[in-house]
């Protein structure tokens, strides 16, 4: 069992190293796909760390992401870039912590809507402050290249996976699995369910904020409409659910096929992109009710049983 864990870790490191070579071999188009995949991997995996075990669907991703983008946008002229990332992370974690504390009493679906409202509230407040202070559109003009952004996102992905792996092996992770199965049992077994959830909710908060901070230079120009798009929250949820939230690598196997599907459709049918995406989406929901993880695991089981008979 122990050895398995180290094998997972080594495999992860190798995959990450391979992925890190993309900028040298892939060309700029593949790099931009790489950035998309890395970004959604980071967001969806950290999202699933919290939402997988707790079954709370958070639609606040864009709030944290936008805060991160704005951290870079506002700070880039005053502070070194590398300082901005941790600042964004702390801001995201603090906001997530506050939200967590405030929403403890809410049951599942209210949490969904709360986070949705939160994202809008943050956007409105930032917009208002911007207007109040006469802040114009923010330009983030840096020498950071797409490859830099890609590597940073990969690094962040590495941290997220390592964090997820560590949490999975910690008491916190165990507590969360119990909470996910039955919160009443968890409480009566002595688990401070509220604290566990708040701590864990801070993870996607921080990660999404850092991701936003990393991506700000790529967008060059930042405005609330672009930084706080509600679509981002939905896309993250959907990719994670498509992959499956029961495994750490689940969101990854949702993000990759989804990105390519998205790409293929938007490249081939620019005028019907939305329609076809919607249709594909429906097909996936009906044909793959357990996400890609479910598919992969049933293929595995099937292969195993074939081996058994052979």
């Amino acid at each position, binding site marked *: 069992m122990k050895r398995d864990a180290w094998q997972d870790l080594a495999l992860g490191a190798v995959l990450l190293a391979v992925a890190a070579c993309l900028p040298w071999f892939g060309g700029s*188009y593949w790099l931009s796909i790489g950035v998309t995949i890395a970004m959604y991997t980071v967001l969806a995996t950290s999202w699933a760390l919290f939402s997988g075990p707790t079954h709370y669907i958070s639609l606040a991703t864009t709030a944290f992401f936008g805060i991160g983008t704005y951290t870079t946008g506002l700070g880039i002229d005053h502070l070194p870039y590398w300082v901005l990332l941790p600042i964004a992370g702390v801001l995201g974690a603090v906001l997530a912590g506050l939200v967590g504390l405030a929403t403890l009493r809410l049951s599942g679906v209210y949490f969904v809507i709360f986070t949705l409202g939160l994202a809008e509230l943050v956007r409105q407040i930032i917009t208002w402050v911007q207007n109040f202070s006469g802040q114009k559109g923010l330009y983030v003009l840096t020498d950071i290249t797409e490859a830099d952004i890609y590597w940073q996102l990969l690094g962040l992905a590495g941290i997220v996976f390592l964090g997820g792996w560590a949490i999975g092996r910690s008491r916190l992770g165990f507590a969360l699995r119990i909470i996910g199965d039955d919160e009443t049992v968890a409480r009566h077994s002595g688990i401070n369910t509220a604290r566990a959830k708040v701590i864990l909710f801070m993870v996607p908060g921080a990660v999404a904020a850092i991701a936003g901070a990393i991506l700000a230079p790529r967008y*060059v120009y930042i405005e609330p*409409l672009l930084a706080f798009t509600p679509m981002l929250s939905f896309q993250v949820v959907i990719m994670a659910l498509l992959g499956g939230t029961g495994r750490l690598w689940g969101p990854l196997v949702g993000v990759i096929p989804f990105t390519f599907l998205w790409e293929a459709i938007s490249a081939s049918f620019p005028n019907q992109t939305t329609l076809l995406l919607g249709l594909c989406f429906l097909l996936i929901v009906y044909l793959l009710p357990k996400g890609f993880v479910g598919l992969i695991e049933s293929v595995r089981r099937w292969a195993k049983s074939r081996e058994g008979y052979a």
Partner: protein
Amino acid sequence: MDRRRLFKLAATTALATTLAAGAALAQEAVKIGAVGPKTGGLAGGAAVSFWPNVQLWAHDVNARGGLNIGGEMRPVEIIEYDDQTNPGETIKAVQRLATQDEADFILAPYSTGLNLAAAPIFDRFGYPMVTHTAISDQIVELSQRFPNMYFTLGGATGLAGGVVEVLTKMRDAGQIGNKVAMVNVADAFGIELAEVARPAFAEAGFEIVYDTSYPLGTQDLSPIVKGAAAAEPDAFVAWSYPPDTFGLTEQAMIEGLDVKAFYTAVATSFPAYAGRFGAAANGVLGAGGVAATSASFQEYAARHEQVTGAKPDFWASGMVYSSFQILEQAIEAVGSLDKEAVSAYIAENDFETVMGTISWDENNNNAAYWTVGQWMDGVFNGVASTGREGAIEPVAKTGWE
């Protein structure tokens, strides 16, 4: 070895893409990429000003037999992508055009934010980027960083300055007093314009009697118009976006905000504006404008309606088409698809377009642009500009009938 295979795969995909786009014309077609919103927040604006012109331009060029490249007539083939009003998608689509589709040229995307997101990619691959819908006051810095980027639509200072100029003219003519009610939509565009306009109005001796912002997506604008009306202004200025441009106008009619100068910003120049308000639109001032009476514009507008089935707007549409014309003329003049040469040619020359002559200052900026237009009998005429010809005199608005 693996790397080569990967490229081959990529190339095959690109080919498949091109074929699937259903636009595989003659073999020697010049590939032109077009990226813009078909969905998302800015889709409404792009559907009026951007996409029809892409269609029209391709139609016009091919109807003439194509681009004259060193004596050889080659048709253009447009490869379109929807960026869903998402800068990440814009970036990806431009990169796809550059590397997968190997587009010969790429038309600049729609809107300030999306142009700026795409600028580094245009720059990296050396594509000339003649923007048509980017409004920025940072043109100096941007053109230094992205030497192939050209600006045609102007900046916030010019747009706001135009309004101040028009109002000053009307005041001096005794048409209005000096009280201005100003509102703005609280996003980067509205904020920037309001910021620039505030001191400019003060300097011109205007008194701002009402000054507020409202969030994008506000569904009921009546409190704002009521507030403005209560301040009894002589002029009403709104730095607004499409849905609220319509909403503010309708509320002003309902509230009886009978100012002699009524200005709303983006989308005032849309045909849908006159379509909705009819005669009531007479005298309304708005952002942009064209030399509506010029032969070149009228001929363009007629062609636009004939080919696309829709009327162009009286500001960005013409500029979008003009930016394509600039690219077209530069390619033909250079006589090859050499991006660098075309870029250099654009920088060094003036161009005759449907909007008139376009020439560049040292920052690749078209310094002479329309700033304010006014509706009159179904036509939105330019009444102020930073040096364009064909402006007519602004008139005082006479009620909402």
